[in-house]
């Protein structure tokens, strides 16, 4: 699935509960219009495409990642990277090329 328009198409894997909310199955592709791929740009694109996910990944007031959400790509944990920092170069290249997805993950927890 692809999204028309200028920008970079990014493959995104959402956790099951958020896929249900968004009404999608499997991976989704969002168009990131920013010239440089950053965590914030990707998340903005996800929330723009699926407004129902607003507040479920990032706190609405602070914009910070919710405590039990993680962001992974290319086997790297990007969760604690500054949201406006460019993604590490090899990660950005792999994502922009469609070779690797950006993973939004619900952190492991018991109960």
């Amino acid at each position, binding site marked *: 699935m692809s999204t028309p328009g200028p920008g970079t198409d990014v493959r995104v894997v959402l956790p099951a*509960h958020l896929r249900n*909310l968004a009404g999608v199955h499997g991976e989704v592709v969002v168009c990131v219009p920013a010239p440089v791929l950053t965590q914030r740009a990707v998340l903005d694109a996800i929330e723009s495409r699926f407004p129902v996910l607003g507040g479920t990944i990032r706190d*609405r*007031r602070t914009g910070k990642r919710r405590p039990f959400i993680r962001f992974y790509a290319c086997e790297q944990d990007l969760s604690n990277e500054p949201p406006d920092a460019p993604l590490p170069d090899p990660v950005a290249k792999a994502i922009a090329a469609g070779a690797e997805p950006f993973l939004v993950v*619900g952190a492991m927890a018991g109960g």
Partner: protein
Amino acid sequence: MTQVRVLAGTRKGAFVLASDGKRDKWSVSGPHFGGWEVYHMKGSPADPNRLYASQNTGWFGQLVQRSDDGGETWQPVGNDFSYVGEPGTHVWHDGTPRPWEFKRIWHLEPSPDDPDVVYAGGEDAALFRSANGGQTWTELTGLRLHESAPVWAPGAGGLCLHTIILQESRMFVAISSVGTFRSDDDGETWRPVNSGLVSEGIPDNDAEVGHCVHHVEAHPSRPDTLFMQKHWDVMRSDDGGLSWTEISGNLPSDFGFPIAVHAHEAETVYVVPITSDSLHYPPDGRLRVWRSRSGGHEWQELSAGLPERDCYVNVYRDAMSVDTLDECGIYFGTTGGQVYASADSGDSWAPIVRDLPAVLSVEVQVLP
């Protein structure tokens, strides 16, 4: 044909239980929003097919779901519960000031007149209102900005606004570890109404605020009469909350969470005694509802059909409700996943369902 619909919010989803007016055979649908905590689910009195549900997890936060077909299908609506302006602070467990931080919605109270108007009680304590079916929410700031708010402190359950009573322009809310508040101007301004409450767990036992109110109910025909289950003590007020008196009487324990009022008898009240604040299960492992037909003081143990032994469940504050059929039905859900129903005002009981996740809330609708 008359239909009764029981809305059960649980630790792992929402369930809709339905029966005809006999209330002896039930269908169970769900889970809706499986895996999510559903603190509360309630239907609009103005349109019984309009339902609202509060859906939350520690991972993904708060959502509100709305159904326009009696719970068959749902759509997520607005979840932006923003405190207006700089949120200010309340007192944290270590005694330090802590900024208000939204965590979840505990209670949804639809307007009796307009299905698109609904109120939401939040943690950290705040009252929100939607006039468009839950699409957007606006905080009624007069409550959180009350002059006493900076000294509010959460109890073990959180600084939660869990009770909302709508009486035309008058409203009541109750907040854990804080107390009961009343507004006479549609929620614009508020005053604490806790005179007569005595709580041994706070330094000044009869302070204006700081009382852990668990639930408050009022009969529609007697708006000035309120019944309260407090952390300890069962209380009543006959002057719209201005003063309270204890009515615990012969209860085996006056600790508990829910309280309910019979649909047609304004002086008939129900509680579920729990052993103590440190033992959140029924005394002696016997699950009992106690009923007073005299507005308190004198209570009758109701046991027919309820577990006689080895029962160590709890019944949460929003997990008991009544229907409005001629023979009033009483319903409650337990942390063990049972939902019990009585079709004869509490004289006898039977489980509707036994093995749901822990039940957080129970509401009932009667459909014509």
